[in-house]
């Protein structure tokens, strides 16, 4: 059932809010035993909220179950960004997006698994003592990351539900494509980041995953908009038209032959004019620019976690330098440490201009490359990922750099803050293959419109 029909059923009193929430919570608990999609399930809070709603059923999302990536603060619910260093942290406030959802009657059912702080593309870099989620279609394969729990549960649930995810360099569309659901990463600043545990402030975007495009549209309307608590949040209206001309990113089609075939068939089925467009800068330099900016910002953001005031704590032994250094080494996972070291290095005196500043300038060139393409095309298109969801045994063999290279198709729109969406285009070896559309800033309407195209009706 689509979310809109479900909400109507709730507000008209035809569907029981409490029974529906109990049903999906039971499902989440059962599924979690096998697939590890949730770091926390908030059964008690969700049922209480449903009971209140049953008396006064109202709101654009009345009774709708929403799962939330673990790096977004939910009042009173353990929020760890998938990291041991935030163990037991229970925020005393809601993130702005959560506040907006709850105001419209949505019910938060739990916090979903992710790579620690978002540091990964396969959701295997979970924090210490956290469990790795498995792909809903084939348990030997990864969900993708870093919003793997969001994608896995969105795919597997049989109940009305949407998920609130987050992307820094592809963490929404990557797992959504690997699990065969729709994932929207909005324009940078369209949704407030207040209450998001930062990875890289100039790149982080909160977004939405769902089974249907109508569900995404319904929720986007509720969560978007300016917030005075986030100085980077935009105070602008959405734009976008029905796409008339699409540019296929030439360099992004040099991936897997079978995946390219699936993507080309879908593009032809759209019935919209298309041609190839070359984007040499983003494909050549995108990964290096993205990772330099991401690790530099991450290393400053993670400096605040010190085993004091909240989160993981030990006995206060040694002076403050000893205590902080010990806590941080005991509670951060390996990839978090790797990125802290890389980022600290890139910002150090003597290297700052060569790495950090250079990357910021290269970002300008990449943004200009996109802007030029949007003078000619309403949307750009490519496969979402260069591969299907890999097996755990394959991923374990990759070096850190080979891991980073998997983001080759998704870092571009993330660097430029452009909205992008993935929707399933077909199957290879029975695993879903996503097609990704990229729009100009604030052109979310074009992305939503294209997903309603007849070519995707079978989804």
């Amino acid at each position, binding site marked *: 059932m689509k979310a809109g029909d479900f909400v109507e059923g709730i507000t008209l009193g035809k569907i029981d809010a409490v029974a529906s929430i109990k049903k999906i919570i039971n499902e989440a608990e059962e599924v979690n035993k096998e697939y590890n999609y949730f770091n926390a399930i908030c059964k008690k809070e969700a049922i209480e909220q449903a009971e209140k709603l049953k008396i006064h059923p109202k709101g654009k999302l009345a009774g709708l179950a929403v799962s939330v990536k673990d790096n977004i603060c939910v009042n009173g619910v353990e929020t760890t960004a998938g990291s041991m260093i935030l163990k*037991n*942290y*229970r925020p*005393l406030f809601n993130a702005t997006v959560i506040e907006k959802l709850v105001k419209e009657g949505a019910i938060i059912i739990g916090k979903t698994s992710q790579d620690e702080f978002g540091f990964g593309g396969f959701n295997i870099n979970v924090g210490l003592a956290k469990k790795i989620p498995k792909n809903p279609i084939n348990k030997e394969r990864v969900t993708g990351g870093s919003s793997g729990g969001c994608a896995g549960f969105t795919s597997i649930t049989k109940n009305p539900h949407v998920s609130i995810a987050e992307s820094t360099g592809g963490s929404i569309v990557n797992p959504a494509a690997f699990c065969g659901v729709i994932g929207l990463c909005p*324009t*940078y*600043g369209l949704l407030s980041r207040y209450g998001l545990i930062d990875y890289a402030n*100039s*790149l982080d975007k909160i977004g939405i995953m769902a089974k249907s495009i109508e569900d995404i549209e319904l929720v986007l309307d509720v969560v978007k908009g300016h917030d*005075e608590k986030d*100085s*980077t949040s*935009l105070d602008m209206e959405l734009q976008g038209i029905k796409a008339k001309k699409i540019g296929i990113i030439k360099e992004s089609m040099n991936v897997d032959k079978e995946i390219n075939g699936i993507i080309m068939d879908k593009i032809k089925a759209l019935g919209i004019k298309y041609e190839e467009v070359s984007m040499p*800068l983003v494909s050549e*330099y995108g990964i*290096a*620019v993205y*990772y*330099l900016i991401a690790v530099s910002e991450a290393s400053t953001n993670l*400096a605040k976690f*010190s085993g*004091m*005031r*909240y*989160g993981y*704590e030990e006995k*206060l032994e040694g*002076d*403050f*330098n*000893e*205590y*902080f*250094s*010990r806590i*941080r080494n005991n509670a*951060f996972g390996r990839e978090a*440490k*790797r990125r*802290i*070291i*890389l980022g*600290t*290095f*890139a910002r*150090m005196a003597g290297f700052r201009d060569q*790495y950090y*500043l*250079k990357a*910021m*300038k*290269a*970002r*300008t*060139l990449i*943004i200009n490359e996109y802007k030029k393409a949007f003078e000619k095309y309403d949307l750009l298109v490519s496969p979402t990922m260069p591969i299907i969801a890999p097996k755990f045994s394959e991923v374990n063999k990759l070096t*850190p*750099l080979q891991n980073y290279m998997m983001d080759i198709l998704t870092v571009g729109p993330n660097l430029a*803050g452009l909205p992008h969406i993935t929707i399933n285009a077909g199957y290879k070896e029975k695993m879903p293959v996503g097609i990704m559309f990229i729009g100009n*800033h604030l052109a979310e309407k074009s992305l939503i419109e294209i997903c309603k195209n007849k070519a995707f009706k079978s989804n």
Partner: protein
Amino acid sequence: MKVTKELVKKVASNARLKLTDEEIEGFVPELKEILDYFSKLDGLNTGSIKPSFHPIEIKNVMREDEAKESLGVEEALLNTKNKKDSYFKGPRSL
């Protein structure tokens, strides 16, 4: 880029990470591979280009400096075990 154990140790110490010897040894080749890849940017001419610190142009947002309601002491201390007499307790600084 020359990555040595000493460099990793120095950077880790700046970042307040007390790495084990085994970790340091593991990071040396990994960081070398990544930094070598990053130096690909040396070939890109960015001479007079302005840096983009954000993907979208952001303006400074100012507000009146007025006191507003904020967390109470008890609430602020809810997330820690290390507290005493309405203060946070931290490791010694001297």
